[in-house]
């Protein structure tokens, strides 16, 4: 295959970026999208040009490190597939492919296609956990968990934190990510004691990071490589409403994200 790539190049956070066009001949349809970029980079280095920086690690679709907007779609054209699991057989000989980083205020570009997603970590640090000091746990079977609850919790827990939901959202909202974590923990009996506080604190942090509000476009679900459902967003609305009504606002709650 021979492809033309339009790639976003940006030296660092402060520099201005621009698209640069590259000719990419001799691409095998068996290559993954990232292996195609490896080949392009090897050739650039051969010519003395800086290779394209992009984030990647496991290349098995589970670590959530890779992420780029490919022809306008986060992770590219294939549904439920991360960029590392996308193969070049999804493209045609002669195609032009535009490759950009995630675009969101809360995800500043560090270089080329690499962005800073530490805002997600701070949302988890604010409340995306169950407090269970090491050594304090009862026997694993002491608290029974109905199978459907465990299964639904696992559905939500499958989120890989890649940020495609934010990149896909016209408001750059992080509601899918945040609500999936709230649902993963809130569906389990172990997650009940902190459920209200979790909703309040995670939403407040989400707002503080500069993510936009959810206005029900549901682009996030369409772009999600793990097919996380927007039903969790509705669940987080309910948790948040209930928490605001039943708990005094001592946790610095924000309003925007659930608008």
């Amino acid at each position: 295959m021979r492809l033309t790539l339009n790639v976003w190049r940006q030296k660092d956070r402060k520099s201005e970026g621009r698209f640069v066009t590259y000719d990419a001949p001799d691409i095998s349809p068996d290559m993954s999208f990232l292996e195609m970029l490896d080949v392009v980079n090897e050739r650039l280095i051969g010519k003395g040009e800086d290779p394209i920086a992009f984030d990647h690690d496991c290349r098995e679709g589970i670590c959530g490190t890779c992420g780029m907007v490919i022809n306008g779609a986060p992770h590219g054209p294939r549904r439920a597939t991360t960029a590392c699991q996308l193969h070049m057989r999804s493209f045609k000989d002669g195609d032009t492919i535009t490759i950009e980083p995630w675009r969101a205020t809360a995800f500043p570009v560090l270089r080329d296609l690499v962005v800073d997603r530490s805002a997600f970590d701070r949302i988890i640090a604010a409340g995306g956990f169950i407090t269970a000091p090491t050594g304090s746990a009862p026997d694993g079977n002491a608290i029974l968990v109905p199978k459907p609850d465990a299964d639904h919790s696992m559905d939500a827990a499958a989120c890989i934190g890649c940020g495609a939901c934010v990149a896909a959202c016209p408001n750059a909202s992080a509601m899918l990510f945040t609500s999936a974590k709230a649902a993963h923990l809130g569906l389990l009996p172990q997650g009940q004691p902190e459920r209200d506080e979790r909703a309040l604190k995670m939403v407040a942090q989400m707002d503080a990071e500069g993510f936009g509000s959810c206005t029900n476009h549901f682009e996030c679900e369409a772009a999600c490589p793990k097919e996380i459902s927007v039903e969790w967003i509705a669940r987080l609305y309910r948790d948040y409403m209930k928490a605001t009504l039943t708990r005094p606002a001592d946790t610095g709650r924000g309003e925007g994200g659930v608008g």
Partner: protein
Amino acid sequence: MTLDAKVPAGPIEKKWDQHRFEMKLVNPANKRKYNVIVVGSGLAGGAAAATLAQLGYNVKCFCYQDSPRRAHSIAAQGGINAAKNYQNDGDSIYRLFYDTVKGGDFRAREANVYRLAQISVNIIDQCVAQGVPFAREYGGTLDNRSFGGAQVSRTFYARGQTGQQLLLGAYQALEKQIGLGKVQMYSRHEMLELVMIDGRARGIVVRDMVTGKIESHVADDVILATGGYGNAFYLATYAKGCNATAIWRAYKKGAYFANPCYTQIHPTCIPVTGDHQSKLTLMSESLRNDGRIWVPKKKGDTRPPDQIPEDERDYYLERRYPAFGNLVPRDIASRAAKQVSDEGRGVGPTGLGVYLDFSDAIKRLGQPVIAEKYGNLFDMYERITDENPYKVPMRIWPAIHYTMGGLWVDYNLMSTIPGLHVLGEANFSDHGANRLGASALMQGLADGYFVIPYTIGDYLASSSLPKVGTDHPAFKEAEASVDGRVKKLLAINGTRTVDSFHRELGKILWEYCGMARTAEGLKTALEKIPALREEFWKSVRVLGDGASLNQSLEKAGRVADFLELGELICRDALERNESCGGHFRLEYQTPEGEARRDDEHFTHVAAWQYTGDGQAPTRHQEPLAFEYVHPSQRSYK
């Protein structure tokens, strides 16, 4: 130097209890006076950092990824072992201990393995409490499945994403401590040097991978939990960023490197498609519960699998190992695949493949049941190969997956450098010459949640640790050495890319030090690797500068270390004149082609001491005693 493993006295089931009582404690008010560095944020490092912070220590945690949640523990699929005996099928702590020692081909330290089996039950409780959504039965109890090398069902799992869920549990506990200010997290930071003062590990030098800034960090104890070194082989199931730099820097500062030749080759990975291949993808061992492995009986049979009748198929694992069948340990399954392929009966375009066939299980259980158990794995297979495994048998082939070797540690998980503890895959401790499936997650979490929190206190309480700062000459020297190395790599400006060197090293290691090794081949590798290393330092091309995000520079530093470590792997394999577990020397096999150990001469850990660049390292021994599980020819028939 004699290697003292510091194994406590007494009967094996009492050792850990007694040791916990005898170890010194740091009182709660004093814990906040100690600073601990944890390098790596996977199951071992993440669990350790979170737990030590809960206890009150000041923790700094470092990872090269953009978030601690991305450590490669996340990719573990199948499950985690624990001796809960919830299935009432005869499991016990002793049986898990027995299976693990036997599975490791009698090359592990018994006391460590027993402790691991004891702690395994606490791990499951801890993870459930954190909200890990383990698979459940309809009554609400935890579900189990079976895994290689065991005849009981003791593996707990969360679909095919067990590692991910366990890591998220540790990560969330860690993030809570970060939010509380007890852990300072340094993502996108790579440790490039260990700093020693007065013979103790007292800090590290790191490079900020975004700004290129070289920084020093002081501590009273340094914990390395940086994973294994399998990426020396280039093509492996590891994440692309996994590297040995942290443990290699520690080795060069005096930490002994134990059993580097014990590398694990996983039997069920997706075969290679071409030279562009950047990594190999694992298909979980759990698939061997329901998939049947076969090849055609005839050589060079190129018919599609559905046109090969039942009586012309060789289910070679079921035939050779009727007791364990498709669930033999990984080393045995990998070698058997190589044997049938060497006989010309491999499948797929390259002949480097065997079938993993689910048609019987689909007939027996129905497609929905198979989809519920393995759906995400089947989807992944289809995305990569463009073949539907519900219809066509999977093609699988062995690949480098784990390293049982690593830095030598004593029973307290301390290396030969005082104040340097090593956890998880980065140490050598529990798996002997072969790791059983679902035991890596168990070991990482055992080390992080339940071992280091006790043993670190003993070290800190019994050591004199005068206050030092980053202005100490040892830090300045280490910073200068790191800076010099970065500049040296950038200044070569040769003709070859870093990846081209890495691929070449990987080919040498796979050919001469992979599934089957010989003295002659290893000697060849020991000539080729130094030559390749010399060429690397002459003609590698690293563009860009050191003061910004530079992925070529990061890779170059790691490959430079692999080029040294690769030589040590081969040297260790050459010295170990026997076959055991993942280390198979063609000269040492039984008439049936099984590994033949030499217990008289090799019932020991080989621990290598660095003696200087260009000089042969010294091989030390830690003798192993098997008082409970008596070495026998490992049989899975």
